[in-house]
């Protein structure tokens, strides 16, 4: 069975068992540990760095660091969380170095709120239409298209499913900043996917939607007038 197919609890147990074996002197047991996590770690560092060449280097360094400091892993945390944090650190260090070299800075948060433009419902089972591979490609390209501060927030929180606190700590920003970046990232990814996943727009549906939207606008005015 492939690692991602395992349920989380038993996957965590297997990680612990492999870590124990490495620490007991069976250094080769680190290799299956890497195999279990390389895809995820590559995705994480790619999200932070945005190019495959730097991501490859960061991934290698992350696994080397993880191996050399395996004694510092505490079982209170999941191995994946610990490893992901190391990988994010490596990637951020690379990014800082790269930025110093080219003095590039696109890490500022945008002040204006993101306004969603698409308001159609989506089809219920898009993978039936596009297939798994194509869906994966659509998701990856929507994530890839995000500016990096939004991309890393989205990948750590929504793809890697870290808690907001863990993700904020890994990136080195406050929890409110993480949450605000995450919301923008979610809205942007949604907007990208909407182009592919919206229900086909029939005349009947357009009229129904327009009627609902007008009805709402009227209701809002009435409620305001009534002082609610």
């Amino acid at each position, binding site marked *: 069975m492939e690692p991602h197919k395992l349920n989380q609890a038993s996957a965590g147990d297997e990680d612990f068992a492999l870590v124990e074996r490495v620490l007991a002197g069976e250094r080769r047991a680190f290799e299956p540990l890497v195999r279990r996590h390389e895809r995820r770690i590559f995705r994480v560092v790619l999200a932070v760095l945005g190019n495959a060449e730097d991501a*490859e280097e960061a*991934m290698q360094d992350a696994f080397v660091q993880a191996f050399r400091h395996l004694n510092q892993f505490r079982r209170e945390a999941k191995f994946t969380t610990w490893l992901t944090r190391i990988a994010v650190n490596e990637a951020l260090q690379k990014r800082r170095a790269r930025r110093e070299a080219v003095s590039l800075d696109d890490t500022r948060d945008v002040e204006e709120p993101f*306004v969603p433009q698409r308001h159609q419902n*989506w089809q219920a089972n898009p993978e039936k239409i596009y297939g798994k591979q194509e869906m994966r490609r659509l998701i990856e390209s929507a994530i890839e298209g995000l500016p990096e501060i939004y991309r890393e927030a989205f990948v750590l929180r929504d793809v890697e499913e870290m808690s907001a606190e863990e993700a904020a700590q890994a990136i080195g920003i406050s929890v409110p900043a993480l*949450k605000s970046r995450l919301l923008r990232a979610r809205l942007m990814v*949604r907007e990208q996917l909407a182009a592919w996943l919206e229900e086909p727009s029939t005349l009947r549906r357009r009229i129904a939607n327009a009627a609902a939207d007008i009805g*709402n606008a009227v209701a809002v005015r009435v409620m305001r007038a009534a002082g609610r």
Partner: protein
Amino acid sequence: MKTMKCNEVISNLSCHIDGDGSGEMRRAIEQHMARCRKCRVVSDTIRQTLDIVAETEPFEVPLAVSARLYTRLEKVLSEDLPIQ
């Protein structure tokens, strides 16, 4: 209860999706959603986005990239350095 506008609902959407924020805020958002189709669609499709993302497995690491990783690890694992 205060009537929320669409832009307020959108900027506080995490309350609705992640259950953050005060109960009062969440109730105000729900009240708005009950009659605003557009905000409901945005919220529903964000949830759908998150479901799709959660179900999507990462791509394989490119073969050459993976091969170079294992070559480097091979060297590191055979070093005689203690694990810290």
